[in-house]
């Protein structure tokens, strides 16, 4: 008896939702990194004014662990009703080649690209090197002597620096740390010679004149750092730089009309002036690509990453 009534309730709710407007209740945004971190604050800033743009609130839920694989996996397996949107990040480009998890961007219905960050090579305030050329010349003359700290094996910044090293045949002594903050403090304390991090991660130290940024691994200069040369300008051209990226995605099989509602709704949140202002303040470059553009970008990223991963021995 109980079972039947349960079924009735279930059926009723299903049938009512078919005719209802979408969205009729709050949307969940799954963030695969912990609360208070960089990715999380961006997500929270993005959905702050959600109600104006999509009619309902968007609640951020942090599902952390497994280098982001847990949260992204949760998005992939979520009910395809459009009420679960996931934030996806760089790790998704490396899971499969590194043998960490089987997920790739092909498992998702891509919504849009949010931002791209580029790597910066940074040395301490009192370092003997004043330009990228100084550093590379020295490192070539003393193979393995220059210690280069990065944020973790397989992270975007590790691969970005390794790609440069492989291309120009420079042997650095790579020292992996666990995230951006410990890497920065290792440089400030003089425990490593150079660090590779996202350029936005060293913005504050740059403004306080505590460090020297030698170059940014991007095709164009960063608007918040107009004085920092790109790798090509510094004399070491890299054709396709490894970029960190963040984007939004849905599980597969969400009905098309709902995808459209979400795509335009999140685009409006993305264009919200207060979100733009926040990103400018923390030095993040917003890059919009719609679903197709995002897919091209990720497919291209795979091609760029494989040889680099192979060169540092992380390809499985």
């Amino acid at each position, binding site marked *: 008896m109980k079972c039947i009534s349960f079924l009735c*309730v279930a059926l009723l709710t299903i049938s009512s939702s078919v005719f209802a407007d979408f969205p*009729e209740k709050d949307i969940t945004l799954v963030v695969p990194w912990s609360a208070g971190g960089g990715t999380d604050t961006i997500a929270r800033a993005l959905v702050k004014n959600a109600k104006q743009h999509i009619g309902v609130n968007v609640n951020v839920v942090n599902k952390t662990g497994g280098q982001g694989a847990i949260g992204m996996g949760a998005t992939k397996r979520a*009910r395809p009703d459009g009420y679960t949107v996931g934030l996806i990040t760089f790790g998704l480009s490396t899971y499969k080649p590194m043998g960490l998890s089987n997920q790739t961007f092909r498992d998702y219905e891509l919504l849009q690209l949010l931002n791209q960050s580029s790597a910066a090579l940074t040395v301490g305030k009192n370092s003997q090197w004043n330009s990228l050329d100084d550093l590379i010349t020295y490192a070539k003359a003393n193979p393995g002597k220059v210690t280069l700290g990065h944020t973790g094996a397989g992270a975007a910044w590790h691969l970005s620096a390794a790609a440069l090293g492989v291309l120009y045949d420079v042997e650095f002594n790579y020292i992996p740390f666990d995230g951006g903050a410990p890497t920065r403090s290792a440089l400030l304390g003089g425990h490593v010679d150079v660090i590779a991090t996202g350029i936005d991660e060293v913005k504050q130290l740059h403004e306080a004149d505590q460090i020297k940024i030698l170059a940014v691994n991007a095709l164009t200069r960063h608007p918040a750092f107009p004085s920092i040369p790109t790798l090509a300008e510094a004399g070491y051209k890299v054709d396709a730089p490894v970029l960190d990226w963040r984007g939004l995605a849905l599980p597969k099989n969400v009905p098309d009309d709902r995808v459209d509602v979400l795509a335009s709704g999140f685009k409006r949140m993305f264009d919200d002036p207060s979100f733009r202002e926040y990103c400018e303040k923390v030095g993040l470059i917003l890059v919009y690509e719609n679903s197709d553009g995002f897919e091209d970008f990720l497919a291209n990223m795979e091609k760029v990453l494989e040889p680099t991963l192979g060169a540092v021995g*992380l390809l499985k």
Partner: protein
Amino acid sequence: MDSRRIDTGVGLGLAVLSSVIYFFAGQYTAFGVNTYGPNFFPQLLAVLLFICSGCLVFNALRGNSKAELEGFHKGGLIKVGVTLAIAVLYLFAMQLLGFVISSMMFLYLIMFALGKKQHWRIALISISVTAVVWFIFAYLLMIPMPEGIFSRSY
């Protein structure tokens, strides 16, 4: 309870475990890393564990493990098993029926299993505790509780 038998058994078990860990950790190699790779720490620990478990067995056989172990209270042990089973069922029920209904059932069943027989009282306690907990977790802290088949989207 006989601490000699227990210590010997546990020690032997740990020795086997440490050997297995040592063997598996040996597979973790990485390219371009120095001598102390991802296999080093687990293997070092496995060796230490093996030595310690050897000492444990040795001490027990020589009759040095003098500590008196707590005996199991048999009726209590059965109750532990029953409540554990209820808890596992609860985890599945929560995914099917959602948080509210399954939690009330869980509290009711556990209290009943522990020997509370006043049905009305424990039902009342179950309902009120669930309500308070739901209010704190789902409403104040906005933690998404499992909704099961009663989710509004379907």
